[in-house]
């Protein structure tokens, strides 16, 4: 809104506002309301849906909404300026946004929070559960910042961003396969509900994760590669 007030509505169109609102809405829908209730007490696949919304789709939409000059206006100047001048903050962000660090954190977060003991522990302790959700959003913001590159920092080339998306999908696929292919329920907290057995619930949670990753990462890769979509012969003659 501040950018629009400065007469640069072209840099902060209503489409961006709609995207940001959608990202925020997706995140809020996941953590406040019926999905949260289902996730907390009834169905593992609802919980998985919650995680992919707050850790993947929500951050992706919000980062997408803020690309370009809009990014600088996200925080008020009195907050942003001191932060930008603080060396350790810049170094910390610089380190966190190194592709290997961001991917490592994202993959570690995915692996750690799906250890059955920790998963169930988080469900029994609200503070830990909130921290878990914070981790999902934080790691999601890191990897989507690299994939979308809202500030045009060019930390990664287009090819490297596609490689990162493929690596994220491959890492997610490992968890998906474990959830879908296991013959026994891994999370004792969930016993199934609404006629869905605990095992089917677990398999569905794997499918939810795979489908969501295919959707978000697939769209991201398609958008990244759209300019190169022409066949070689047409590129040569163009």
């Amino acid at each position, binding site marked *: 809104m501040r950018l629009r007030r400065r007469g640069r509505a072209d840099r902060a169109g209503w489409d961006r506002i709609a995207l940001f609102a959608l990202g925020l809405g997706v995140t809020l829908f996941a953590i406040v309301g019926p999905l949260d209730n289902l996730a907390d007490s009834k169905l593992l696949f609802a919980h998985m849906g919650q995680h992919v919304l707050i850790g993947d789709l929500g951050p992706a939409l919000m980062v997408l909404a803020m690309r370009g000059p809009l990014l600088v206006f996200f925080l008020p100047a009195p907050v942003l300026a001191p932060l930008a001048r603080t060396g350790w903050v810049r170094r910390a962000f610089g380190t966190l946004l190194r592709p290997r660090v961001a991917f490592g954190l994202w993959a570690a977060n995915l692996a750690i929070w799906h250890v059955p003991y920790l998963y169930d522990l988080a469900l029994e302790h609200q503070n830990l559960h909130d921290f878990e959700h914070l981790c999902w959003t934080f790691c999601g913001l890191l990897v989507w910042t690299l994939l979308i590159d809202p500030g045009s920092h060019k930390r990664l080339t287009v*090819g490297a961003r*596609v490689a990162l998306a493929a690596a994220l999908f491959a890492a997610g696929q490992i968890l998906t396969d474990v959830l879908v292919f296991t*013959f026994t329920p891994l999370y004792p907290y969930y016993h199934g509900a609404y006629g869905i057995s605990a095992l089917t619930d677990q398999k569905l949670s794997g499918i939810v994760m795979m489908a969501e990753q295919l959707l978000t990462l697939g769209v991201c890769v398609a958008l990244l590669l759209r300019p190169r979509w022409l066949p070689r012969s047409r590129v040569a003659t163009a």
Partner: protein
Amino acid sequence: MSPYAFGFEPLFIALAVAAALLYWRAARRDPPSRWRLVSFAAGLFLIAASLNSPLENLAAHYLLLMHLLQNALIADVAPLLVMLGLTAGMRDALRRRGAGRLRSRWILPVWLLAWYLTHLAPFYNWALRTGWGLNIEHGILIAVGLLFWWPIVTGRLTPPAGLAYLAAAFVGSVFLGLAYVFSSHPYYTFYEHVPRLWGLSATRDQSLGGILMNGEQTIVFLLAIGYFVLRLLDEEHESELTVGRQG
């Protein structure tokens, strides 16, 4: 008869020998590198051995799991190895004989259609009951497997198009394996009435088959996607070098 006795589909030994002879003849004009030779030989061996070994007997008379393993080998892995074994000259010769007209936009639906239709219960049961029907099933799977990998190995697809082709194939084909994994009853009546092995019920046998099929496809497709991602990175590196030289 022991479950581990050899089973045979001699047609595919004959076809593998014929393919080897044709390759040998083509190799005299256009000698392949060692790795291409090994790849082609490994592909033919996989086809012939999968269909003429104890695996054939287990697949045709006892376990769906083994049948799906057989199908994964002859439809996905072996055709890729065979195609990788072709030299540029051999591919050109195939192009002149009509393969040049093959387009990925219709290969993909044909491949998917064949993949699902050959696994439909009526066809699958019929093929298993008649025995010779298995030759048709396996012939279709090998043929569409070769067809599927053709646009990939010829290098006709740009990296973005290759990634789209593989992603569409992965997404399109994944449902069959998942159907096996999720189903709580056996799809194929044939396997309900065979002697049980290794303590596997018909449903568990089917679930394991689905796991195997999905696992194999995930590995093969992710490797192929990885290859195109590397090509994309190489192209970027090349263009950076070109810009550097011009600068």
